[in-house]
Every structure is written in C-alpha cells, then in structure tokens.
C-alpha cells in the first residue's frame, strides 16, 4: 500500500506514437463501417425495413429500403471511423464514435429487418426499448452495487449472490406477508445478508475478496435452492406467490412517442433504478461521503491520515451495496416472475462486466447495462424473426466486449487503486 505512488508512475501514459488509442478505435470503427457497407448491403434485400413506433406492425413507422438503409448507415459508420482516423479534435471523439457505432447497429438492423420473412419485416421500437430497459434493470442495480463496493476498495464478485438472495427473500417474505413493501424491504435485507458476510470476511478476517465473492455466490445458490425445494416447491401458494408491483404511468411523460410508453409506464423498479443512478452519481462526485469513499478506494492510508475511518466506511458501503443489489433481485420476483432455482442465471456476472465496462462509474455502468440489455433484447428479437445470426453469439457480446475493454483495445479501464486490497491500520 505504501508503494501506490510508484504504481501510478507505471500506469502513466507513455508516448504511443502514431497508433494512439483514439486512432485504434477509429481503425476498428472504419473496419466495422466497411463491413456494413460491403457485407450488410450485399446481404440486405430491397424489401422495406420498417421501424414502427408502436408495439406491433401498426401505426406510424420509419421506413427505409433495406439495401439503401444498410448502405447509408454503413457509410455513416465508415465516415465516422475515417474522421477519427484522420485526427479529430479530442472533444468530438466520444460524439463521433457514438454516431459511428449507432450507424453500424442501424445498418445491421436494416439488413436483418429487410430479410425477415414476409409480414415480419418490421421492428416494434416500443417493445425493443422497453425490453432493453427491463433486461438491463437487474444489471443496473447489480452494477451500482459493484460501484458502491469497489469505489471504497472492496471487490464485489458476489453481485450474483446478492441479486439471488434479494430475489429469494423478496419472494418469500412478500408471499408470507402478502405485502409488497415488506417484500421489498426483505429483499434489501436479503442482499445485505450476503454483503454482511462479504464485509466481515473481507474486512475483519482479511480473506481474499474475489475468493469470498465466488464462495458467497455458491452459498447463495445453495441456500436459495435448498429452501426453494423444501418450502416453495411443495407449497407455492403459501411461500412463492408474492404480490407484484403494477405499472405506474407518469402523466404527460408517457405521451412521448416510443420513449413514453417504454420508459414512463414501467414499474417502481425502473424509476428506482434510474433514480439510484442519479443519486449515487451525485453522491459519489458531489458530496463529502463520495469524496471519502473515493479516497478510501484509491489511497486508504492517506484517507486514514486525514481522519476518515476507513474500515467503517467500507463496512457501510458494502452493506449499502447489498441492499441495492437485493432490491435489484426483487425487480424479478416482485414484478415479473415467481422465484425459481438459480433464476439470476449469470446476470450478476454481466452486471460485474457492466461495472468494469462502465469504468466503475454510475453513469458508465448505466450505459453499459443498457448496451448489454439491448444486445440481450436484440438476440430475442432476431431469433423471433428467424435470423441467420445465432442468438448465442449475440449473448456472448457483453462478455467479449468486456474482455476487449479490459485488454485495453477499446479505451482504457482502470480500477480504483486500492480495490481488493484489505486495509490494515497501523
């Protein structure tokens, strides 16, 4: 811990010559653009690709000839890539990169939608946007739990277990009490229980945090699976029939086309998730608590010297993270499905990926979670229209993207300096 200054020197950017990270990103985007212009355009049919602004084929729609659309948006991606390669001012980089990536995706969609079987060559945008948010929801909560933990220097690999425990106790106590709010609080406590174990063993007993996270995931799978088979399976009416939050429509806002019905007619978890992103973002970067959390995560010794109680702050943040993830788990059992064994099914690890891909920041995690949710939703949509693209490969996308991000091929990700290192006072 005393050598962190040396570490920082080692990570300091070196002169990379012509192939800077920006240029590499530009090169990748150019390649994607070329792929779109050449391959997608060639494969697209001249049928129109319709993007309807509703939940089905009816209503107003954005319509474009498949071949033309694939070529046009592919050209946008290509142009953006070339612009970055040519040496764009840095302040435009993110915007142009975003435009380029969106162009690539739309080009891909034009190809896919136009070649769909007759009568199915439309894409209901409301469904897609809503599905993206629903699928991203546990990821958002999970990634926020990760942000809270890791920003204060405790690696949280137990997100999966926290989500699962939250989902389980939400379902169990929601059913027993018949009360939504009891279920929600129980879910938060369930997640906190796993967090408490993580905190005690990582902070008090100095157990390796990654090891502890992995073991806690297995423990959560075991306990919830065991109690599910002993209680919920024999008597689902008593133990596994939690009430569900209904959708709340926000007046006015829900009238906005596409975004309105998709975003402002959701359940409490959607609003809560988005609100939490905002709260944690402001908290982390604008409040005293946030400054202390970040300093404990980067340089606990310095923070301690200045009078911050490192271990207490870490305990508090890890427990808070468990509550957040627990509520995320309840977004399944108190809104969508009844509890089933291992129902989180790896979402906790995608949330971890979203956390890393979003560079340990709340807003980054939100965007990454939405991207992963979109990939997930797209996989469902494509298999519904019998696409030639296997849905499994789309499902791999979040994981592959994270590997590329960590390997430094897409920008650079850097964890908080003291993340995963136990702090021993003295």
């Amino acid at each position, binding site marked *: *811990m*005393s*050598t962190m200054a*040396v*570490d920082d020197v*080692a*990570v300091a950017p*070196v002169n990379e010559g012509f192939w800077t990270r920006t240029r590499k990103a530009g090169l990748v985007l150019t390649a994607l653009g070329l792929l779109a212009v050449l391959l997608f355009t060639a494969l697209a049919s001249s049928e129109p690709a319709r993007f309807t602004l509703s939940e089905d084929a009816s209503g107003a729609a954005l319509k474009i000839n498949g071949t033309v659309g694939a070529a046009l948006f592919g050209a946008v991606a290509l142009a953006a890539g070339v612009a970055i390669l040519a040496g764009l001012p840095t302040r435009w980089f993110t915007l142009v990169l975003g435009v380029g990536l969106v162009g690539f995706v739309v080009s891909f969609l034009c190809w896919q939608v136009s070649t769909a079987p007759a009568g199915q060559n439309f894409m209901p945008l409301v469904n897609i946007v809503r599905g993206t948010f629903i699928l991203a929801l546990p990821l958002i909560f999970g990634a926020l739990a990760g942000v809270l933990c890791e920003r204060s220097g405790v*690696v949280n*690999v137990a997100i999966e277990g926290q989500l699962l425990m939250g989902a389980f106790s939400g379902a169990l106590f929601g059913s027993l009490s018949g009360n939504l709010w009891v279920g929600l609080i129980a879910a938060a406590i369930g997640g906190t229980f796993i967090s408490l*174990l993580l905190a005690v*063993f990582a902070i008090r*007993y*100095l*157990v*390796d*945090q*990654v*090891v*502890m996270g*992995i*073991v*806690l995931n*297995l*423990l959560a*799978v*075991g*306990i919830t*699976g*065991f*109690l*599910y*088979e*002993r*209680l919920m399976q024999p008597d689902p009416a008593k133990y596994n029939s939690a009430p569900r939050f209904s959708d709340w429509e926000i007046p006015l806002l829900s009238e906005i086309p596409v975004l309105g019905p998709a975003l402002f007619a959701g359940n409490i978890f959607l609003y809560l998730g988005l609100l939490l992103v905002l709260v944690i973002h402001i908290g982390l970067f604008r409040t005293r608590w946030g400054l202390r959390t970040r300093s404990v995560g980067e340089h606990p010794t310095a923070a301690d010297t200045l009078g911050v109680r490192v271990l207490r702050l870490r305990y508090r943040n890890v427990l808070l993270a468990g509550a957040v993830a627990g509520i995320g788990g309840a977004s399944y059992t108190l809104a969508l499905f009844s509890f089933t064994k291992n129902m989180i099914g*790896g979402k906790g*690890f*995608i949330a*971890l*990926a979203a956390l*890393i891909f979003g560079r340990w920041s709340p807003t980054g995690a939100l965007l990454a979670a939405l991207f992963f949710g979109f990939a997930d939703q797209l996989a469902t949509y494509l298999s519904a229209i019998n696409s030639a693209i296997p849905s*499994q*490969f789309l*499902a*791999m996308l979040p*994981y*592959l993207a*994270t*590997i590329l991000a*960590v*390997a*430094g091929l897409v920008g*650079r*990700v850097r*964890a908080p300096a*003291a*993340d*995963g*290192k*136990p702090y021993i006072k003295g």
Partner: protein
Amino acid sequence: MTNTGSGSPDKEPATADQAARMALDNTERAEPTSQQPPERPALGRLFVENLWAANTLTVTVLSLLLAMVVGGILMIVSDPDVLGTYSYFTARPGDALNASWTLVSEAYTNLFKGAILDPDAVGLTAALSPISETLTYTAPLVFTGLSVALAFRGGLFNIGAQGQATMGVIAAGLAGFLLPLPAGLHLLVAVFAGALGGAVWGFIPGILKARTGAHEVINTIMLNYVAAYFLVWLIVQNGVQDPNRSDAISRPLDASAQFPRLFGDNLRVHAGIILAVLVTWAVAWLLNRSTLGFELRAVGSNPAASRTAGISVTRTYVLIMVFAGALAGLGGSQMVLGTTAAALTPLVVAQVGFDGILVALLGRVKPWGVLLAALLFGALQAGGNRMQSYSGVSLELVTVLQALIVIFIAAPALVKAIFQLRAARAARPQTSLAKGW
C-alpha cells in the same frame, strides 16, 4: 497494482504486499506439515495440545463440523413439521429436540451411507457402490482443483476452470464421436483433445495478462460464459446434434473413446480416477521438483524479484494458464469420457469448474491436498444423492455445506475464535493472494 494498466507485467514494480506474501510463504514452507511432536517425556500431553491447536487438519475438521451444524439448522427451519414443535418448546422441549435430532441425524446418516459405506448392503457390488459413486464424482474435481491450485501457486486466480472444462468437454466430445479410431488410441486422442481444448481457453487470459496486463480474474469470468454459450450453439449444429433427437443433445460418444470401468458394469467408477492420481503426482512433481515449478512458485511469490533473477514473468504467466487450462480441460473431458454422461448437453460440465475453486482452497493449494479435498467433495456429492432420495433433503444442501466449509477454512481466525483453539504456527492457508483487479 498495475495489473489493469498497460504494459507487460515484466515491468511491474515490486509492492509491499507481494514482499509480505513472499515472507509469509517462506515461513509456511519451512513449517513441517505433520504435527508429530518430537520425542519428549510428556508425549501424550503434547499430542493432545497439538490436536487442539489451530493446525490445518484441526481447522479442516472443525470447519466441516461447523458447516454440518449450519446445514442441520437449515434443515430444521425449512421443515414446517419440525418447526411446528418449536411453538410449544417451553412446555415440552423434548418434542422439538427429538424431532430435530431425528431429522438431522437421519439425513446425515444417509449422507454417510451414500458416500462411504452402507452397513445394510447385501453383496459385494452393493457394498462397493457408495465408494464407487464417490470416486466417480471425485475424478473431475481433482483435475479442476489442480488447475486452480496450480494457477494460485503462480500468483494467478483461475476462475476460468469452468470455461476451460467446457472447452475440454467440447473437444473431447467431438473427438469421441467424429473420429473413427480403434479402441485405446481413440481414448488417448479424446483425452488429449480435452486437455488441448482447455489449454487453448487458458492461453487466452494468460497471453492477455502477459501482454496487456488485463486482469485474469475478469477475463476468465467472461470466458466462462463465452464457452457456455459456444457449447449451447455447437450442440444444435448439423453433424453434432443427435439426428434422432429434437432437444439439445449431441450424438453419443463411441464406446472406444470412453474410460474402461474398474469393477464391472454395475459400478460406475472408471479409470479416470487412476489418471487423476497420476496427474496429481505429475503436478506435485512439476511444482516441487522441476525448473518450471520453481519459476512458477517464484513468480507467484514475488514477480519483481523473479524478474530481477532472470525469470521471464511473461512466459511463466502464459505457461501457468496453459497448464491450468489443460488440467481443467481434462476435468471437463471426464464428464463425457467417464460414466457421468455419454453425450454433450448444455449442462454436461455441471459445476466442476466452480467446485474446483473450492477444492483447491480446501486442499490448501497443494496437489495431494487437492486430491483429498476432491475426495471429500466427491463423497458429499455421492452422499447427497442418497440423502435426497432417502431423506427428501434437497441435494442443494451439499452446495451449502461445500461453500460453508470453504468459508470457515478461508477464515481460520473465526474457527479459532469459536472453538478457543490455541494458535498454531502453520495455521494460515495460502489463500491470501488478494491483489485486487
């Protein structure tokens, strides 16, 4: 740490915690593992004292005990009938205690009978059946446990044993039903293919770690899922899927590609367990007797010092992950080359990779320790099956027990505090490899 930063790990500076870890490892290695007291007058007293000291064996046994206590509590609270007797506990405590004792003792008796020996069994086959089941479950865990342990000793945390096992089972499975080879050679090729599949999947995080400093924990977690989806995709492809089935299952493996059974057709134990023992010996030799093993342990203890001493840390990291991947691949291949399954399905590798992490920790990341730990886990698995069918206690309890054992093992200070153990010198397992991302 600079692990997530750019640049090769060969350029990393030393850190204080690595130095501390090296010092820790050195003291541990100096400790004799056996707690045999020296020849002194009060031999008996010394023995008892050592028995109740927080040495490795005592902590392990007490952890198992604690885990079973927690497991028993879980059984009681999840049984409405037994729980009902607690409502009048103050009036007639005997009822509650009796009911609880019956429930828990019966379940654990069945666990024992299913794992080791059933005294009521008639005939040799029935008597050997529990041991055969235990060994069948043990075999793949030995390999995945060794995979994780080997990487640990080199300072890397291989969470990717699951993905490597998946790639191993894919390669072994494909070799098993696509290649028309004579018996004997076919098995050899299939085993080799399994190791190769895992090695490739281990090479990726290894080279990424060595070249870009990308943290192997993140990459191996991600690769686990990539491998799982790849398996799901592959099974339903033409030429792989069983033409007679509509669900996701591959063609069955040829009999020539499967391990021979050891004790006749009625017992499931197969030659894979012999291979497991041989590989354990080989890994022990590699770690403790070979140049590569020395370099591996040196890099694991202190990369900076190793670099100064002229060891290529980059090369060692890649080699560690390739070897770890090959071991995990072997573990995965056991699932189709043994008697567990005869074809690829989406869940064919079960949890062997994740269980391997627990086995490695329980085995104190030492090869022969891993073998014993795998034996314990295999026994729990085999006994759990009987517990489920005879006592109606869900198999998931085994997962809980396994996780709890490792939690207690990982925090010997907690076990020590609960049982008021005397401090022993060799108590701390080598699991404190905390490096962060």
